């Protein structure tokens, strides 16, 4: 589902964020991506959603070589991928419902369909009764769950998460990870960047480790 073939990324300043990374992630997998700060985890995720292009090598997502996706193809590509950000990236002048509905409105769904799916997603993350709340009135964990609901509401094939438990307490982190496992069980490919090694090693999924832009373990299942 996700395949990197000797991908290197050099940022404009000449810094090598990724060096010759090759990996394959199958459709039904949940994979953790770990490494020290600056190892290139975020860069790898950003490449999958075309926020960044490789300097060398190629990325293939769901059979689609991303090198062949032009600027006009980017929105359509991103609609197939759900993303959870560490800092949530919610729209703070809209309520919870509106935030979660965003991908569906963009994809052009009928409004009845939007209402139904948004409530299903909010129900899944346990925030159904908060749909009218504004994000600032929610705790960090709740905001993160709004972000997750937004990521999955469009039924993407791939779910990416960059430090989804970054500043949550252990119990909450475990809860969020469990949500991701549930999505994975219904067939979503999940890739989570995290340096909470204690948490992820307990969960018994494949762990890919980056060190200074090089992949040091976990390249294949």
């Amino acid at each position, binding site marked *: 589902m996700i395949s990197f073939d000797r991908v290197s990324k050099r940022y404009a300043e000449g810094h090598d964020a990724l060096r010759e990374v090759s990996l394959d992630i199958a459709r039904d997998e949940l994979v953790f991506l770990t490494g020290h700060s600056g190892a290139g985890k975020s860069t790898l995720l950003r490449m999958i959603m075309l926020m960044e292009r490789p300097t060398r090598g190629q990325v293939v997502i769901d059979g689609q070589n991303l090198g062949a996706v032009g600027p006009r193809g980017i*929105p359509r590509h991103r609609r197939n991928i759900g*993303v959870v950000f560490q800092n949530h*990236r919610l*729209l703070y002048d*809209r309520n919870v419902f*509106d935030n979660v509905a*965003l991908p569906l409105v963009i994809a052009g769904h009928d409004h009845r369909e939007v*209402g*139904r799916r948004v409530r299903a997603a909010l129900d899944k993350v346990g925030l159904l009764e908060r749909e009218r709340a504004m994000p600032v009135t929610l705790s960090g964990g709740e905001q993160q769950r709004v972000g997750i609901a937004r990521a999955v509401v469009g039924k993407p094939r791939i779910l990416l998460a960059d430090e989804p438990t970054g500043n949550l307490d252990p119990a909450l982190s475990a809860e969020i990870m469990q949500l991701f496992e549930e999505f994975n069980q219904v067939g979503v490919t999940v890739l989570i960047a995290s340096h909470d090694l204690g948490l992820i090693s307990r969960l018994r999924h494949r762990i890919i480790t980056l060190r200074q832009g090089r992949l040091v373990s976990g390249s294949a299942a």
Partner: protein
Amino acid sequence: MSFRLLGVRAAQGVRREGASHSRTGLRDRYHAWLQHHRLSAADSMHRVLDNPVSSAMTWLVIGIALALPSGLNVALDNVSQLSASWDSPAQISLFLHDEVSDERALALQAELSARADVSLSRFVSREEALEEFRSLSGFADVLSSLQDNPLPHLVVVAPAADAQQAVVAALRAELEAYPDVAQAVLDMEWLQRLDTMMLLGRRLVWAVAGLLILGVLLILGNTIRLAIESRREEIVIVKLVGGSNAFVRRPFLYTGLWYGVGGGLFAALLVAASLWFLQGSVADLARLYHSEFRLRGLGVMGGLNLIILGGLLGLAGAWLAVSRHLAAIQPR
């Protein structure tokens, strides 16, 4: 405020769960697209109205910029209406052939007086002309040393009072064809001068309009740029979750449209107000000259045209801003 850019609110309005069908066919997408247009339009309108003071300033600036050339144009229209309907001050001087006798000349004058398209004709014999010339020109000595009177008989014809310029010109040509007439001269140089000035005026209006329209585009572009800037984070998020450029662009284009339409409306009101302000004194003046002349305004069509022009400029300005600044906002 009940609508937002993304138009998600309205989706909340309908709560019939389970009653929906989950496929997104072409029809559904078309409806969703239409709905997004509606909601973008409504949301942009709300945003414009949410800041009444700054929006009114924008409208006023655009309004003034559009009102200036269109007001000038209305003024020129009135002048040309006035000059076309002028109680024709033109007169046609008919210089007769040397061999035409006084009797023939008088008969001609009588014949011309009888014409419907001639209001007045006057015979000036060559002797009278010489006398007049002598007393007016100061060449008395030179003239008295001449043995022959060099001047021809003259019949002065005033065309009918309501005759248009073209009609007068045709009359002149017709009179020149009379066998007794050597030459027919139309004295309307001042009218031609007016026409030339009007032409100049029209060109000036176009030049002013061009500059001001450029100004309007820049103002709108800048206003939209600020709107884009203030919603940068929102744009980034929309792009991250797969919003196309068209989707991101739409609300800003509507914002431009509303600013432009409002500006056009202001312009139409400004022109109408200044005409209304002038109407009274023009009517007084016209009465003094026993004229039926009334100021002609923009009319409904003119006003509509201004509003449409404003709307188009709004769209164009927004398009300029959007194409320059939206592409630069990429998720990081």
